[in-house]
């Protein structure tokens, strides 16, 4: 429906789709959150792991959809976020752009604005954080600015909610009126070239949505989309030589061999001009800003790192101390839930599938939700305040030596708790290669679920006094191995020029509770939804593999034996033997036997092989599987003395060392692998990870096995 019709019948609701853009740290998300009566819709931009927030609300007879695009400094394609924004702005289906600008740093923000002005879409500028600017003595003449650049400029504040309604009103007004030419002016030499191109386009009556002037500007600055559009037009043949000549003139004028640099300078001088005209700042004596004062402590060359380590330590204490409290209740709940549901199902097989398969599997995933909530709250706080950039600044020197990025620290340390939030938090790394490399080595940081296995083996072969040191040694050597692997991967698979490290250190800000909560909620829901569905399916598979095929003869013969004996101890023993035999002839046992030969060079028997493979589902399962296989019954935990005894009796020390090494390195649990695949963005990376971890684990275990056999 066109706009004239819409005016004639105002009852029909019209849709206005708005693209919300701005540079990073301009309070865009906060602004979108402060629209009242708005609906949030969170998803992903297609094909990439970039969150897409849409805000839906009604205003007058209009139905608004606002798409919050990731922050970008200019039209560049450096990070995924920048690519997403650029692509959406060029090809997305939307009606109007709201450009959010930080009023306290107008000139810098206009850099993106001036690029937006050459697009075919209408623009409305939101001068955000106006309250803060006024406090700093900055006064912006918004009306004059609107007149000067030819688009409405509205003063707003996400904090005080000032001007929000006015902004929406301006958008509807702009939507209803015809497109007007924006007033972006360049130096005389560039204007001459623009005029020539416009004249040429006009002569040929070139048909286009965008104005001739904007097409000319985009052609001159080498905008790919515009080129692609004109390339197939007949006028291109004549246009090309004119363009080449024009480009030469501009480069000559700017004393640069780079047309993009020349245009950046043109934009910068336009922005300087606009700022000088509309902005009036009361002269303040040169005093240090609050941010500078905080920074003098937080990024202090000596104190900076200890302070950061303290923050991290506190966060992990909170995550795993407070997070563990509800974990217990969740566990109790799922046990109760399983029992209750189980009682209603008559069929043994279906009951086992539902209770031991689905409910137990899903319960294991839900168990980590409290940890995830606390951890993400902490990370959202670290990011929202602007502290995360400081961390990268402090640590980049050390991590860069291993081919990693300063911000890799957060996901790596998180990996000591649980790999799932670690993989998810790797999103803070904006560069693809940095993020992938970090994702690949997170597994080397031994997660909490591997602890029971370590405790069991350390207890079986070492005195209680030594066991603690051994545990520490295992964790540290895992981390060191991870850093070395990062270096090797960087020199081989992720070879290439180092990604540059250029990053804004934003002002310190206190993020609103609403914003933090929203971030945490989104992440948690995504975790529950995706990992939850896959986990339910995978748990069913593992359950099936370990329970089938049934050998009725075997079961019956043992059950009669169990019934016949009166001795409780003997009963228990028979029961355990039955479990062991059942597992041995199950599909999982067959796989274990089949793969035994692969593990023979490491000194593993088929039981250890099965335990390792069961550990692919979840690392905790390794202990319970070993328990079953060494016939101790199902209820086995790492404190179980008799299992320790059984292990030290049945497994040689070198085999045990090799086993620990494999546990340390090989593929993380199923849930983590699924999250890994999602975060890495493609299934092929899962196979790479599988191959990489398996090879490294095998080689390292073999070395450890041979070495310890030689020593002892």
């Amino acid at each position: 429906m066109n706009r004239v019709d819409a005016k004639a019948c105002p009852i029909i609701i019209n849709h206005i789709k708005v693209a919300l853009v701005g540079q990073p740290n301009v309070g865009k998300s906060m602004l979108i959150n402060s629209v009242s009566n708005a609906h949030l819709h969170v998803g992903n931009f297609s094909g990439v792991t970039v969150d897409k927030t849409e805000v839906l609300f009604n205003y007058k007879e209009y139905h608004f959809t606002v798409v919050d695009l990731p922050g970008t400094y200019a039209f560049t394609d450096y990070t995924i976020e920048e690519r997403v924004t650029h692509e959406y702005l060029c090809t997305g289906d939307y009606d109007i752009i709201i450009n959010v600008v930080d009023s306290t740093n107008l000139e810098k923000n206009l850099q993106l604005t001036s690029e937006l002005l050459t697009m075919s879409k209408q623009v409305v500028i939101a001068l955000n954080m106006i309250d803060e600017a006024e406090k700093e003595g900055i006064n912006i003449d918004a009306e004059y600015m609107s007149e000067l650049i030819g688009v409405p400029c509205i003063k707003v504040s996400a904090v005080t909610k000032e001007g929000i309604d006015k902004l929406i009103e301006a958008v509807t007004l702009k939507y209803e009126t015809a497109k007007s030419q924006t007033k972006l002016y360049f130096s005389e030499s560039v204007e001459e070239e623009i005029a020539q191109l416009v004249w040429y386009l006009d002569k040929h009556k070139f048909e286009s949505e965008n104005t001739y002037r904007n097409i000319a500007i985009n052609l001159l600055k080498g905008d790919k989309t515009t080129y692609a559009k004109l390339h197939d037009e007949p006028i291109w043949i004549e246009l090309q030589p004119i363009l080449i000549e024009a480009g030469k003139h501009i480069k000559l004028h700017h004393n640069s061999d780079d047309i993009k640099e020349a245009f950046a300078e043109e934009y910068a001088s336009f922005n300087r001009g606009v700022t000088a005209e509309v902005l009036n700042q009361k002269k303040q004596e040169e005093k240090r800003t609050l941010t500078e004062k905080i920074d003098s402590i937080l990024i202090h060359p000596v104190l900076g790192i200890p302070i950061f380590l303290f923050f991290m330590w506190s966060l992990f204490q909170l995550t795993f101390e407070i997070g563990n409290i509800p974990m217990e209740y969740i566990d109790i709940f799922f046990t109760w839930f399983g029992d209750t549901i189980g009682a209603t199902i008559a069929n043994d097989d279906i009951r086992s599938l539902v209770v031991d398969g689905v409910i137990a599997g899903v319960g294991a995933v839900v168990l980590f939700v409290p940890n995830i909530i606390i951890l993400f709250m902490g990370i959202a706080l670290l990011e929202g305040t602007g502290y995360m950039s400081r961390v990268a600044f402090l640590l980049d020197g050390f991590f860069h030596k291993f081919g990693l990025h300063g911000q890799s620290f957060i996901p790596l340390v998180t990996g000591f708790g649980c790999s799932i939030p670690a993989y998810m938090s790797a999103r803070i790394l904006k560069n693809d290669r940095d993020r992938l490399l970090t994702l690949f080595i997170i597994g080397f940081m031994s997660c909490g679920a591997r602890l029971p296995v370590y405790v069991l083996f350390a207890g079986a072969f070492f005195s209680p006094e030594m066991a603690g040191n051994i545990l520490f040694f295992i964790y540290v050597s895992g981390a060191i191995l991870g850093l070395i692997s990062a270096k090797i991967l960087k020199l081989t698979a992720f070879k290439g020029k180092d990604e540059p490290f250029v990053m804004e250190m934003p002002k310190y800000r206190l993020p609103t509770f609403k914003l933090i909560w929203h971030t945490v909620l989104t992440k948690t829901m995504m975790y529950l939804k995706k990992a939850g569905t896959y986990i339910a399916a995978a748990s069913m598979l593992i359950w099936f593999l370990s329970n089938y095929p049934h050998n009725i003869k075997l079961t019956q013969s043992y059950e009669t034996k169990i019934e016949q004996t009166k001795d409780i101890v003997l009963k228990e023993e028979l029961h355990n033997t039955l479990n062991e035999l059942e597992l041995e002839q199950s599909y999982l046992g067959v796989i274990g036997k089949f793969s035994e030969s692969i593990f023979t060079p490491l000194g593993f028997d088929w039981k250890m092989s099965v335990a390792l493979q069961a550990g692919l589902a979840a690392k905790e399962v390794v202990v319970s599987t070993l328990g079953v296989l060494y016939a101790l019954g199902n209820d086995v935990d790492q404190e179980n003395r008799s299992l320790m005894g059984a292990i030290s009796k049945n497994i040689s020390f070198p085999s045990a060392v090799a086993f620990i090494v494999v546990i340390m390195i090989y593929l993380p649990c199923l849930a983590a692998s699924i999250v890994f695949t999602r975060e890495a963005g493609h299934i092929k990376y899962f196979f790479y990870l599988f191959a990489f971890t398996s090879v490294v684990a095998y080689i390292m275990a073999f070395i450890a096995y041979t070495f310890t056999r030689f020593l002892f």
Partner: protein
Amino acid sequence: MRTLFDCHKASKVKIVKLNADGDLKQRLISFGIMKEVKVEVLEHAPAKSTIEVKVGKMRIALRAEEAKLIEVEQI
């Protein structure tokens, strides 16, 4: 040739030339680091692996390698 990396803490300089190419140059420009712009060096990370500079009102962190590509002169 003096680069941003050679500057002491708290020194104020003007950028003369960007020796970076392609993507990195675009990246620097998008942060406002370009010819004729005044820069103040704020902080060095341990071992001078990273430096923090102020361009206009924006604080930017750069790795030593990148800072070495930015030619500057005293003002």
